[in-house]
């Protein structure tokens, strides 16, 4: 420990000599709550007129370097009135009583471009997320821990195992073609959540709606999440914090499988069958399926009801982190390192992650300050689990396992050497188009991902005058991703002769900006103005090479490709955007505030005539409680209204027609008809809100109503293929989102020992496609290729799903064919619902008793429909428990073609193989209500009391138990978690297809501060 401290200290010293020359004295002190005499944790202590700052620790103590002579300390903390305390020239310690300011009038939030504003002056809705909530929940991707905590924020996860993609949408989907996802800003520079270390986050603030984010221009039309990371602070010694946690992720099978019938068809056991319509399992001796000549030729039929549990395992994640913070008057530094490793529920899905963060802040002169940061992220992952109709998706193979085949047997019999000494897959239907031995896929179809990310940020702020400053900042963000995909020879269909893909991509984002800030007051009038500019330069390079057949078996290198079986795709995409912007807030007596912003972007992705585009916003805030005398129990009453425009530019390279070079030097014609008059998409948003606090802010509530219209959508319209193009780009359409958001924060009980606090978030978004194309009332958003199509349809909400369904007569009866089996529509023409939720909400409760705290979060995602392609398959193939009924014959409730009542007996096999299956399933039968309510998070924590630690060097210690996704309170989807989807692509939301199963996780978290 001493050695580490020494090394770190040396590092800091080397970084800036100014640390050495700091001539200071140190004031030690403690901040306590004047009402209940408890320690105030996290209060900020600054020296008036200077830049030194300190933050109180878990025992309320602080230590701050101050210049010689008399000084004044300023102590501020959320929920308390800021207090100035004079310190005598010889005084070295002080105890400060802070009195509670339940009005929270001065809560400061970080808004667009890093401009700090008091929360109550804002004319739009923002919501902060408690950082302790984020670190305690211990999600490896921070985005996951936002579910249920912010009104109107929807998180959808893809099913890939550890490190999966996450899609964050605020206030509904707006863009048909382009992203609807929120912009993430970390310390003023665009970034992402996936590479962020949760322990580094100091604050997180969600700006909803485009008025909040108008200053960010085209990137922020879908809202912004602003994250500020930790800085070092001036202290008497280095503050060191350790965090260690273990998480166990347990798979839960929500599906019922039948365990009575073997593989086969028509009640007959067939050893080479991939469907389970075979014989009733009675312990009979049958031919063994194994094609390995060394194996037994017969076997005894029995069922294996534990196949699911035998295949999946408990995922384990270990997180260990350290952070060190400290500094002198001139320079402060923060360093953190976190290591995460573990495995997913398929035990060879492993990952290892390192996060480094080093930040140095300080003052060069009284007027010039700097802030620099470097973060490094490295993640190696093996064997991401695939999702969907991918033959190498191990979920797909295990879910399609007939019950008479046991996991233990296939695990030890998945491969053998044939007479030619070739490694051969052992599977019951050799050469199957779609089937593989699950263990062959697990071990012989492997993938590997290595992701590196370096972020650098440096800024200088010069204060010309106390109220005039200039910030100049540069940010660099570089991602390097390498991945490999290796499949052994004899992987049916997708790699008969082996397969090898290697993909490298590098993306660099350079962001230079400046911001000039000025504020002044003239009598009752105040003005705060900012003007700035930004140059954004992105370049992405990627190279992907595929050897689709290999010469030497199972040697994975590109030189091993068979002749003509090597193909590459590469891309180089540069993009520039320059911007100028300004904002001004005018206030009268701080209770009536008018804000205006304007921004002009020049984007290289637009055609020349459209390079430049401008977006304004305006908003008005009235703090009624400061204007007129209201009853005493009203602490705050605020009204706000705003209107804003933002726009989105298209992706690069859309304005010209190209001929592409195909592998081997062929030339092919573009299938997209370009339009050289493309305009940016424009989102116009209006927002009205009211916020109030009652009973000394024991009750806080907010209500927002918003309406956004996104017009000039950049749509690649499907054109008649005979026209020469499959698609063309046009500006068209109008997608409207209207919605309300309600937040409520209540502290019903607050005594010195016990506090109960709860919060409620509710957001209802109503989406409607007002207009679409000049030529067609609908637009395809995507689909899974087999079962569903997802469309935007005029007059309907975004994301309407269509599939095949039952042919019905005018009275709605199912029509059966001559054989008694229901008729299925030929095309995907049956409407099966919309995938987007009607409302989302969260209910959080926190109980604190002395050193214990218990919190839990229930989240709800209500409405919307989801289809299961998995169910279509396992029902069609006779694996599902629901296929037991009618095996010996039943009559479908329906009518014959002539209208008479159906009286033809069919078997469950005839029925389900028609309704389900892979190629032409009737999605109508496999679509469910996606509403679900779950216990998303449960945290029980205990902080070891100061008295117990007083003789140690430990300043604070806490231990917490966490549980995530513990159980569903309601889940209408049959056998799966409706929030796990194949992909976060907007056309695939609403389709579950061989996704990883539902998992619950349990964790133990230990935190030590020195």
């Amino acid at each position, binding site marked *: 420990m001493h050695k580490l401290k020494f090394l770190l200290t040396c590092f800091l010293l080397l970084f800036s000599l100014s640390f050495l020359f700091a001539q200071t004295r140190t004031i030690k002190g403690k901040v306590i709550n004047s009402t209940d005499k408890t320690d105030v944790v996290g209060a900020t202590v600054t020296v008036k007129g200077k830049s030194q700052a300190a933050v109180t620790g878990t025992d309320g103590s602080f230590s701050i370097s101050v210049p010689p002579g008399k000084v004044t300390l300023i102590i501020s903390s959320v929920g308390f009135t800021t207090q100035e305390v004079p310190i005598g020239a010889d005084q070295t310690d002080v105890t400060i009583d802070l009195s509670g300011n339940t009005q929270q009038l001065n809560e400061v939030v970080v808004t667009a471009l890093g401009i700090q504003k008091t929360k109550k002056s804002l004319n739009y809705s923002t919501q902060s997320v408690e950082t302790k909530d984020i670190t305690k929940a211990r999600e490896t991707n921070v985005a996951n821990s936002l579910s249920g905590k912010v009104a109107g924020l929807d998180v959808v996860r893809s099913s890939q195992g550890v490190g999966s993609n996450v899609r964050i949408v605020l206030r509904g989907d707006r863009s048909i073609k382009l992203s609807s996802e929120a912009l993430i800003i970390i310390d003023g520079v665009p970034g992402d959540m996936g590479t962020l270390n949760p322990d580094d986050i100091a604050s997180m603030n969600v700006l909803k709606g485009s008025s909040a984010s108008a200053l960010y221009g085209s990137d922020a039309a879908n809202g912004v999440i602003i994250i500020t990371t930790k800085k070092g602070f001036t202290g008497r010694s280095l503050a060191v914090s350790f965090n260690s946690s273990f998480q166990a992720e347990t798979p839960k099978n929500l599906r019922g499988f039948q365990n009575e019938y073997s593989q086969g*068809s*028509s009640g007959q056991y*067939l050893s080479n*069958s991939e*469907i389970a319509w075979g014989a009733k399992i009675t312990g009979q001796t049958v031919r063994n399926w194994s094609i390995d000549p060394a194996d037994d030729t017969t076997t005894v039929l029995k069922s294996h009801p534990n196949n699911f549990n035998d295949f999946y395992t408990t995922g384990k994640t270990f997180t260990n982190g350290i952070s060190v913070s400290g500094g002198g008057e001139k320079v402060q530094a923060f360093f953190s390192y976190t290591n995460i490793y573990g495995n997913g529920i398929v035990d060879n899905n492993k990952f290892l992650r390192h996060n480094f963060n080093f930040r140095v802040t300080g003052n060069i002169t009284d007027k010039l300050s700097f802030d620099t940061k470097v973060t490094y992220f490295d993640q190696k992952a093996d064997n991401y689990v695939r999702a969907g109709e991918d033959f190498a998706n191990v979920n797909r193979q295990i879910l399609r396992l007939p019950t008479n085949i046991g996991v233990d047997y296939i695990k030890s019999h998945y491969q053998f050497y044939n007479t030619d000494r070739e490694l051969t897959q052992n599977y019951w239907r050799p050469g199957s*188009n779609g089937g593989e031995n699950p263990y062959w896929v697990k071990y012989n179809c492997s993938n590997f991902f290595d992701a590196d990310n370096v972020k650098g940020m440096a800024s200088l702020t*010069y204060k010309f005058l106390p109220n005039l400053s*200039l910030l100049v900042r540069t940010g660099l963000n570089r991602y390097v991703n390498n991945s490999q995909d290796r499949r052994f020879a004899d992987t049916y*269909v997708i790699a*008969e002769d082996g397969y090898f893909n290697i993909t490298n991509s590098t993306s660099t984002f350079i962001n230079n900006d*400046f911001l000039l800030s000025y504020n002044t007051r003239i009598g009752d009038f105040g003005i705060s103005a900012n003007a700035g*500019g930004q*140059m954004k330069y992105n370049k992405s390079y990627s190279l992907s090479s595929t050897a689709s057949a290999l010469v030497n078996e199972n040697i994975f290198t590109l030189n091993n490709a068979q002749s*003509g*079986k*090597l*193909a590459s795709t590469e*891309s*180089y*995409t540069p*993009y*520039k955007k320059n911007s*100028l912007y300004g904002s001004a807030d005018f206030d009268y007596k701080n209770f009536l505030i008018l804000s205006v912003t304007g921004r002009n972007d*020049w984007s*290289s992705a637009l055609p*020349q005539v459209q*390079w*430049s585009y401008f977006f304004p916003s305006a908003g008005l805030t009235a703090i009624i409680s400061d204007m007129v005398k209201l009853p005493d129990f009203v602490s705050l009453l605020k009204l706000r209204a705003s209107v804003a425009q933002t726009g989105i530019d298209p992706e690069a*390279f859309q304005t*010209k027609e*190209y*001929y*592409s*070079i*195909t*592998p*081997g030097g*062929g*030339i*092919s*014609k573009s*299938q997209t008809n370009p339009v050289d008059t493309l305009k940016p998409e424009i989102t116009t948003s209006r927002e009205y809100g009211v916020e109030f606090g009652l009973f000394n802010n024991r009750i806080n509530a907010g209500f927002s109503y918003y309406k956004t219209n996104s017009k000039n959508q950049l749509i690649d319209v*499907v*054109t*008649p*293929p*005979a*026209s*020469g*193009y*499959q698609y063309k780009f046009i500006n068209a359409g109008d997608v409207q989102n209207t919605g309300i958001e309600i937040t409520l924060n209540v502290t019903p009980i607050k005594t010195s020992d016990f506090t109960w606090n709860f919060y409620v978030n509710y957001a209802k978004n109503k989406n409607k496609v007002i207009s679409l194309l000049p*030529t*067609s009332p609908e637009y395809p958003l995507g689909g899974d290729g087999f079962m569903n199509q997802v469309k935007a349809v005029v007059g309907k909400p975004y994301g309407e799903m269509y599939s095949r369904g039952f042919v019905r007569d005018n009275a709605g009866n199912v029509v059966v*064919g001559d054989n008694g089996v229901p008729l299925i529509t*030929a*095309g995907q023409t049956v409407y099966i619902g919309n995938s987007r939720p009607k409302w989302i909400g969260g209910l959080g409760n926190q109980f604190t008793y002395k050193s214990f705290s218990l919190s839990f979060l229930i989240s709800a995602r209500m409405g919307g429909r989801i289809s299961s392609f998995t169910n279509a398959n396992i029902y069609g193939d006779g694996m599902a428990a629901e296929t037991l009924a009618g095996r010996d014959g039943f009559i479908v409730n329906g009518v014959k073609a002539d209208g008479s009542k159906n009286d033809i007996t069919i078997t469950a096999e005839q029925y389900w*193989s028609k309704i389900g*299956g892979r*190629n*032409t399933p009737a999605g109508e039968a496999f679509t469910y209500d996606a509403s679900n309510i779950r216990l998303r998070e449960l945290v029980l924590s205990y902080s070891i009391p100061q008295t117990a630690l007083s003789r140690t060097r430990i300043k604070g210690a806490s231990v917490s138990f966490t549980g995530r996704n513990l159980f569903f309170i309601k889940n209408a989807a049959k056998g799966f978690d409706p929030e796990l989807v194949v992909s976060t692509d907007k056309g695939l939301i609403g389709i579950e297809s061989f996704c990883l199963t539902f998992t619950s996780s349990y964790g133990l978290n230990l935190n030590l501060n020195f």
Partner: protein
Amino acid sequence: MKRYITGFKLLPVFAILSLLASCTRDFEDLNTDKTKIVNLAPKQLDKLFTTAEYAGITNTDQWAGGYQLLVSLASDEQAQFFSCTQAAFPSDRNEMVGRWINGGWSSFLQGATTLTEIINQTSPSAVSPDPLREAVAQIWKAYIFMPMTDAFGPIPYSEVGNGQDVVKYDSQEDIYMDFFKILTAATGVLSQNTDKKAFATGDIIYGGDLSKWLKLGNSLRLRAAIRVSKKIPDIAKTQAEAAIAAAGGLLLNSADNANMTPTPPNYLNPLGVISEWGEFRMSASMESIMKGYQDPRIPMYWAPAKNTGAFKGIRNGLSILQMSESFNGNDNNSNVVPRFQNAANATEPHTIYVAAETWFNMAEAKLNGWNVGSYTAKQCYENGIRASLDQWGVGGSADAYVTSTNTPQAFAGPAPYNIGPLSTIPVAFGSTEDVQREQIATQKWLSLYPSMSGEAWAEFRRTGFPKLYPRINNDNPDASVDAGSVKRLIFPPSEITVNADGYQSGVEKLGGPDKTSTKLWWNP
């Protein structure tokens, strides 16, 4: 002084401002994809023609996607070259899978519109007209559009590549009349230039050899004339006789057969690609006819069944359950020969036109009473058989085969699959016109194996020959188990939304509802 310093410190601000203003200079260049071509150099048309060739036969990718959808899952099954053994595929029971038809249609049109681009860039109105390349492109246009109109009836033709939101369909009659027009013009141009080349190595069929393109052009004109012979006999006769007498001659020698050479990795022999998936086997009709005839081509066409070593076929139209019976299993039945399986698909040429077909067309023309020169119908018929046997390397058996009195045999197996022979015609040329017409059509059907099922299906619908077994099951309410009950494919359902007015024009020109039971214009 103070003022001056402040101004000096503001300099970076003004520097940034002026930088921003000038920074759109490189936008145009930045927003140009350097990995692609904006303007084609004339020479690059050769490579574009390669794409028009393989995509024209619906092969737009190395997975042969379009070929599987429009050939393997449609005409291969309708012409009963193969029977489907993939439980998930309903098309062998006559079901129309809209998604497949959508896919095949747009694959074809990628090729067809690429070809239109080439014609536009070589036509007399182009910047640099190129009559020779244009003529080859026009012959190729007739070749690729013919199976499409024969599958659907009216299709987009004259407006293909118009870049508009609506592409109207042309009637089948208009399309065939245009085939005659463009083939006449193109062969006229080529006949003056047989010593020259066009598209060079970009032509993966003939390497740019114009004398061979000329023969193919003349032969396609004869093919088209035969097709419409029952609908417009007078025009058919004129066109056929002109084609037969045309300069450069017909494609009568197997050495001139049109074979498309794969260009791996983006275009592979499509049959080789799809046969790898084990989704079809020899049809029962093939077994009945070829085994009955003791056809010397059997071992050249078919691999013995893996389990039994016998040549064995499967009835068309099996239900999902029937497909799982071992009698109908892949390993108990004949696949294509190994040269059409995976190992060879990167090098094995894909045959798209054979000399045998020209001879059979000549034979029918002769029976029609048209002037085919000095040949008798029997000579044409036998020459067709000889050309086919030569093509497959079994020419030595031709003398015995053309005089053989063997007839199709029964299809053996358990009920409901077993069935007697449907025809009693032998190989040896018969004495009545009815027998002769059936023999010609039957031998043409055999000669079109394995990759020209589109032509085989069209001729089967036109002539009713060869007599093919009924399907075991039919799932299409507009069809029946009778072979030939499917008269056409339905228009792609995607056209109803994407090209509504175009679709409507197609239905109007079809002369009946958009159903599989509506007969095409040329179909008697």
